[in-house]
Structure formats: structure tokens, C-alpha cells
């Protein structure tokens, strides 16, 4: 009786079930939010990089180990494509051409960009914004249009350049018939398009250099020239490295300009005077259906060369500063 009389201690009324569930769910969502949403935020990059960057690269590597016919059979042959690459005259020819045009475009281009950036950085210059925008305009023009217009300028018979040269008594030059002349013509297109872009990046780098350094130098009696060598250039090093690596990547992948200069012929000149690595890759991998595997090997070779050249640049630029 007494036992039955003792009532249970008053416990707090149990919350209605739906509220409890909601609270539990709320805390779960909270936890999930904390743990996983950062991954979700960065996922788009990795997803897109995976689909458009990583997957094609791995797939190309896989293809390069095969005798791969684009519309037919695929046979695994290991590293044979790479071995063949080493004794392929036309591959080395394309490599030399690519480096030739790379040197003819990158070196004058960066020197000119450095010069222009210094000018644009001067305080006495009026209408700065106008000049800064004007210098970038060539970069906005489509590559194909640039290549077609320059292709006409460098024509043998009715080209403007040959006409100008004839005024100073130089004989007609067949620009497409020699290595040096075709490289010059193609490098001119590249320089025209990219000098302004590099100028702006270098200019941005220059403006990030603290002004008090220059003031201090001036007080110490350093002239303009000395300030440029001992403040601007060393402080510009990281920017310069960035610009050099970008130019390297662009230079190694040079394709549209030489292709259109050759009137669309993938071998780039009657004797492959200006066939670049990228064109050779296209010839083997896409134009020629049955050698897609070999083309993939060329693509990987280009990738390796870019990595190598960028590393060399990196070391050189870093060492020169020490």
C-alpha cells in the first residue's frame, strides 16, 4: 500500500517528441556544418580540376603507353612510344624550333615590358590610366585575327614588311622559307600580343615596392639608375619569376600563330622550319588517327619540358638575387 502510495519524484514533463527530434537533428546539422561544409566550399575547384585537369592528364599518360588508333584498336606497348621519341628527328626539330621562337619572343618581350613598366611607373607621366589600358589592348584581340593580319604583313609578294624593306633597298624576303625569318615573324606576333600583359604585371609588382626605400636611397645620394638596379630589380624578383614561368608555359605551347602562319599546314613550313612541339603533338595525336598514342607521348614530353624549364628559371632567378 505504502509502496504503491509513494509517488515517483516529480520529473520534468518530457518534451513533446517532435521538438526533441528537431533539437537532435539541429545539433547534427550543426556538427555536419562545422565538419564538412569547408570541404563543400572547396569542392567545386577539386571537382572541376579533377574533370578538366587531372583526368585528361592521366588519360593522356595511359594513352601514351599504347599503340592507340583514334577510331580503331588500342594495344599496350609500354614505354615504346617514349623510346621512339628519342630517335625521332622531327621531334627534336620541333623542340629546337620551339626554343628558338621562345628565345626570340620571351627575351625581347620581357626587356621591353620592363622598360615600359618603368616608364608607366614614373610620377611625371600624364594620363596614366589611358596608357595602362592602351598597352593591354593587343592582348584582348583574338589570336586568330592577330595571326591572320601578321600573316598578311609577312607575305612574300604583297606584304607590308617586304614593301617597307624594299624602300631601304632590302631584297624581297620569303618569310616562310627559312627558319630565322619564320621564327622572327612568329615571335613578332607573340611579342605584340603579350608585351602589354607582362608590362602590367611588372607594373603591379613595382607599385608594391615601398616608397620609403626610394626616399632613403635618394637621401643617400643614389641616382635613378642605381635605384633601379638595387631596389626595383631585386624587389621585383618574385613578380619576374611569375612572368617568366607564364611565358615559358605559353612559349612551349605555341600553336595557333605558327599554324595560321603556315596557312593551316600542320607540318609548319615546307621543311618543318617552324613546326612547334604543340603542332607536332597535333600532327601525331589528332591529325594522324593511327598514332594517337605517340601524340600522347609527345604531350607528356611537352609537360616534362615545361616543368624542367620552369625549374631552371626558378633556380636561376633565385640565385641571381643572392
Amino acid at each position: 500500500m505504502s509502496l504503491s502510495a509513494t509517488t515517483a519524484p516529480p520529473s520534468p514533463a518530457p518534451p513533446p517528441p517532435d521538438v526533441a527530434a528537431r533539437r537532435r537533428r539541429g545539433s547534427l546539422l550543426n556538427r555536419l556544418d562545422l565538419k564538412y561544409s569547408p570541404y563543400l566550399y572547396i569542392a567545386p575547384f577539386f571537382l572541376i580540376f579533377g574533370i578538366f585537369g587531372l583526368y585528361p592528364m592521366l588519360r593522356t599518360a595511359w594513352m601514351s603507353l599504347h599503340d592507340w588508333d583514334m577510331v580503331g584498336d588500342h594495344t599496350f606497348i609500354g614505354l615504346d612510344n617514349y623510346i621512339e621519341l628519342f630517335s625521332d628527328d622531327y621531334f627534336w626539330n620541333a623542340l629546337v624550333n620551339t626554343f628558338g621562337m621562345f628565345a626570340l619572343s620571351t627575351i625581347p618581350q620581357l626587356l621591353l615590358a620592363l622598360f615600359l613598366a618603368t616608364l608607366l611607373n614614373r610620377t611625371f607621366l600624364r594620363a596614366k590610366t589611358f596608357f595602362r589600358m592602351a598597352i593591354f589592348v593587343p592582348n584582348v584581340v583574338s589570336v586568330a585575327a592577330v595571326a591572320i593580319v601578321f600573316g598578311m604583313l609577312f607575305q612574300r609578294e604583297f606584304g607590308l614588311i617586304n614593301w617597307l624593306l624594299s624602300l631601304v633597298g632590302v631584297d624581297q624576303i620569303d618569310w616562310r622559307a627559312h627558319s630565322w625569318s619564320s621564327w622572327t615573324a612568329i615571335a613578332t606576333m607573340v611579342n605584340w600580343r603579350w608585351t602589354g600583359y607582362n608590362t602590367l604585371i611588372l607594373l603591379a609588382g613595382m607599385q608594391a615596392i615601398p616608397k620609403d626605400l626610394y626616399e632613403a636611397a635618394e637621401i643617400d645620394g643614389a641616382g635613378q639608375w642605381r635605384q633601379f638596379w638595387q631596389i626595383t630589380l631585386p624587389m621585383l624578383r618574385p613578380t619576374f619569376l611569375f612572368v617568366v614561368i607564364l611565358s615559358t608555359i605559353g612559349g612551349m605551347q605555341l600553336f595557333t600563330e605558327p599554324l595560321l602562319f603556315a596557312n593551316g599546314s600542320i607540318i609548319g613550313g615546307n621543311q618543318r622550319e617552324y613546326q612547334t612541339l604543340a603542332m607536332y603533338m597535333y600532327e601525331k595525336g589528332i591529325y594522324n588517327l593511327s598514332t594517337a598514342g605517340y601524340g600522347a607521348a609527345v604531350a607528356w614530353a611537352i609537360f616534362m619540358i615545361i616543368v624542367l624549364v620552369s625549374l631552371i628559371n626558378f633556380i636561376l632567378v633565385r640565385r641571381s638575387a643572392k
Partner: protein
Amino acid sequence: MSLTTRRARMAATALAAVLVAGGLAACGNDDDKPAEGEKPAKLVVDTFGEMGYDELVKEYEKQTGIKVELRKTAQLGEYRPKLVRYLATGKGAADVTALEEGILNEFKANPRNWADLTPLVSDHSTEYLPWKWELGKAPDGRLIGLPTDVGSLAVCYRKDLFSAAGLPTERDQVSALWPDWNGFHQTGQKYKQATGKAFIDSITAVSNGVLFQQGSDLFYDKENNIIADSSPAVKAAWETATSMVDISAKASTWSPEWSGGFKQGTFAATFCPSWMLGIVADNSGEANKGKWDVAAVPGGSGNWGGSWLAVPEQSKYPKEAAKLAEFLTNANSQVEAFKLKGPLPTNLEALKNEAFLNYTNEYFSNAPTGKIFGESVANIKPVHLGPKHQAVKENAFEPAMRAFENGQASKDKAWEQFTKDAQTQGAF
């Protein structure tokens, strides 16, 4: 459920979701062929350049109630990579696909990409130029292409420039100047003596003409071995073409020098397959209308280009597609296409058609182009083109010839370059 396993499961689920999404995107096409005899709602036709099918497909729609979508690509250079992509990925190809000579030969190496048309259409083997019909067959015997047009060759020449050099201008008299290539060369030399200017655009244009008159194996023998260095036809084309370097303007076909040359009059004659007439007219401009005329080609005939219609194996309606291809290549359609855009018929009946034979071209001084090209067609000799004929010709034969023409290499060195490159370009 512990936290770690729950997290692991979450991660697994997320990964699975991503994979499934990716997988769905990748395997979007399941090749469920429709039931036998089911009528398609729509057929797609892929063509390049101008094949003149615009009106014909509308007529077919009316006749059959099947909608036909005509997808045109202007340049062959853009058309080929698209086609390769369709075949390599197994989807996207049209039901009826136009294949140009070079493409067809190359794709013959993998005939299983194409439906065998023999059981799908009635037997037309005797209705077309026999050699053209044979070229539509793959090595394993399956019929992969129905003949459309042929690039029968003629010579386009400038009457005003001829008359300035004291040469006859009437097209029959002009044709009579060059019964053979020797006569053509001598005419060119006369022209050059009188005017000091070049006579033809380039020697590669000559080689094209000579090559297809030989009626034998060109770069490959019948077993598809590369015989570039020993083939008599190739040697003949090489010798004839290189001998004409003295009358050449050194303007290779499609280069800016070449297209600019038409307006400037840097050359007085060029080789014209029928499809080239429109290009000559465009390059020369309205100002030169009526100055051009068309004469016979030295040696009587020649062939440059031409196409077939094929049905990709991946088409869901091979039977209906084959019927459409059959319709587009029949005699009546070929005449209609010629009248609209100029591709030259290969159907024997179409070649005898009154409307075709009476057709005259206004831009070219009202030359009876139907008759001129039609006569040339009848004389075309069948040649054997190997799988990489186009690549050998474009990337080995012609560059070597141009290197000689431009003085970059001696004749022997250029020939050496060609035979070396022919091996790599011709491998398959």
C-alpha cells in the same frame, strides 16, 4: 553507431554520389536500338562545304514525313576532327555522313565504324562511274559509301591576260594549245616570254593534275604497301610538275599569295575541279567577272576531290538513314545539287541529263561547265588510293615539291625528303 564510422559512412556516401553523378554523365548514351521497322522522328545529315542538299532534304521530308536536319560545316579542316570525335567516343555522329575522298580512304582502315549498305539499299553498282562506286567499298568488301560528286578537272584561264600575251582566247582554241603537258608547258613559256609574268599558280597544282591521270597505283600498291619511291605514277607527276618551275608563280594553293594572286593577276591559269569555280570567282572578285573562262585540262581528264555518303554504325536508324543516302545520291538529286551549288554528278544518268549538259556559268564567260566537266568525267581513270593517301600527298609530296620550287632544296634533295617523309606519313 560511433562517430568515426558515421563519418566514414558520410564520406563514402558523398564519394558515391559524386561517382554516380560522374558515371551518369559518362554513360548517358545507352545504345538501345529501337525496334525493327520503327520509323524515326528525325534523321541528321552531316555535310561539309556546299553539297547542295538544302532543297532536297525538304523534299524528302515531304515525301516521307521524316524530319531531316542538315548540319553543314564550312571547312573540311573543322569537319574531320568533329567526325573523329564522334567515332572515337561512339556518339554524336549524324545518321548520314558525307565523307570526302581522303577521309573515306583513311576511315576504310576501320570499316566496322560504318554500316554495310549492301543489304540496306537496292543494287546500284551499275548506275555510277564504276571506279567511283568501287572506291566506296572497304577492303573487307562492305559497301560504306554511296557516291556523291567528283572533282573532275579543267583549266581556268584569264582571257584578258592571254590576249595581252598574244595567245588565243576562245576556249576550244585554248584547249587545242595543250593536248598534253608538253604543250601546256610551251604555252606557259610563250606567255612568260611575252609578259615576263608567271603562267600558273604553283607546280603542286600541276602535280595534282598529272597524278590522277595515270590510272594506276599512286603512293600505295594494291596490298597497301607504300611504294612512293618506286611508283611510276608518282615519278611522272614529280617530273612533269618540277619541270614547270620556270612558269610558276610559286603561290601554293590556299596561301595568301595564292588568293591575292587572283586579283593581282600574278598567274594567268590554274587547275579547276568543278568545286573550285566558286572559289576562283570569290578570290577574283566582281571586277574580274567575265575575264575568266574554262578550257580542257592537258591529257584530257583528271580528278581532285569528291565525296561519298555513309551511315555510321552508331546510327540508331541505319535502314532509314541508308534510304535517305540513296535518295540524296540518285540521278535526279545529283542534277538538282549541281544546279544549286555545283558538285559534279557521278551518276551516269545524271551525267547525260539535259539540264546538266546545258548548264552555263555566268561568271566564267558563260562557259558550258556542265558539258566541259561532264566530258572530262568520262575519261577519268580509276586509281588506287591507299589509307593515308591524303597525308602522304599533303605532308610529304607537296611540301617537298614546294621546297624545290622555292629554291630551298635541290631536286634530288627534295625527292629524298619526300621518300623519307612518305614512309612516316603513310604508315598506318
